[in-house]
């Protein structure tokens, strides 16, 4: 049974099986988003907003903070299970998300599925996080507690 609290539908432990997909989560990221994230997180590293510094570091252009991308993937988790449900969350930063100037920016696509049912009501969710053809995050998984 799904639980409806505060107008939001959450999956319950009994509803999901290994392989149950999460809704696809798409985030377009432009330069302004990186500046906003820099301010919110306190990570002011120049390669995330200045082209010259990024190129001097051997990058093709400005890149998103790895933690920004992990945060976007986290939003895919919380949209599905609720923010209070996440008990563990890990990733590897495999490739950078390059963010060119302009309104088009870059597009991050997060997909996921239930990988294991643990002690009720906990499940392990594995996520795939891509930008174009690149898997930008790898080894990405979370432990979430669902409704009973």
């Amino acid at each position, binding site marked *: 049974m799904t639980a409806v609290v505060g107008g939001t539908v959450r999956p319950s432990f009994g509803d999901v099986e290994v392989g149950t997909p999460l809704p696809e989560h798409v985030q377009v990221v432009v330069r302004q*988003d990186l500046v906003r994230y820099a*301010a*919110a*997180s*306190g990570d002011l590293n120049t390669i995330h907003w200045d082209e010259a510094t990024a190129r001097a570091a051997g990058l093709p252009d400005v890149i998103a903070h790895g933690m920004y991308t992990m*945060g976007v993937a*986290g939003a895919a988790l*919380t949209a599905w299970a*609720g923010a*209070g449900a996440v008990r563990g969350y890990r990733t590897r930063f495999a490739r950078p998300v390059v963010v060119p100037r302009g309104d088009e920016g870059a597009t991050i696509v997060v997909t996921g599925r239930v990988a294991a049912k643990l002690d009720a009501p906990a499940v392990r969710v594995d996520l795939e996080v891509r930008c174009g053809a690149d898997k930008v995050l790898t080894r990405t998984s979370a432990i979430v507690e669902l409704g009973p």
Partner: protein
Amino acid sequence: MRVGPTFASRLAPPSDPYEVGREAIRAFAVAVGDDDPIHRDPEAARAYGHPDVVAPPTFVVSLTMRSEAQAAADAFGDIDMADILHRDQAFAYSRPVRAGDRLVVTSEVSAREIDGRQILTLETDVSTTDGEHVCTANSVMVYSGPVAR
């Protein structure tokens, strides 16, 4: 920064308490595109049994990153961030971070050489001023800067 090929772990002193505010949580949620009302609306948070708005899962990085940088600087001197590649990040939560929390952050840093690369491992404890554990963050950084031999 001068880094030896292998060095022992160092524990940085605990941070000053950080008071988690509703607006800081909202700003972080907006920044990562997380529109769950539980980050913005105390009523929605209470409907899920939380005393106040709840932070997105990666919010604690705004505390842990500062502490990690301090721990690394205490152990090894000034670090050029251009020489650091963030490779892995993990969080384990006893409960979500929420508005009104007063959090103290303690980081331990260690480093070792693996296959010719300097790997920095940082473990950061996030607990309330009352000693309640909230989160442990583990980071792995690859350092490519100058090395003292």
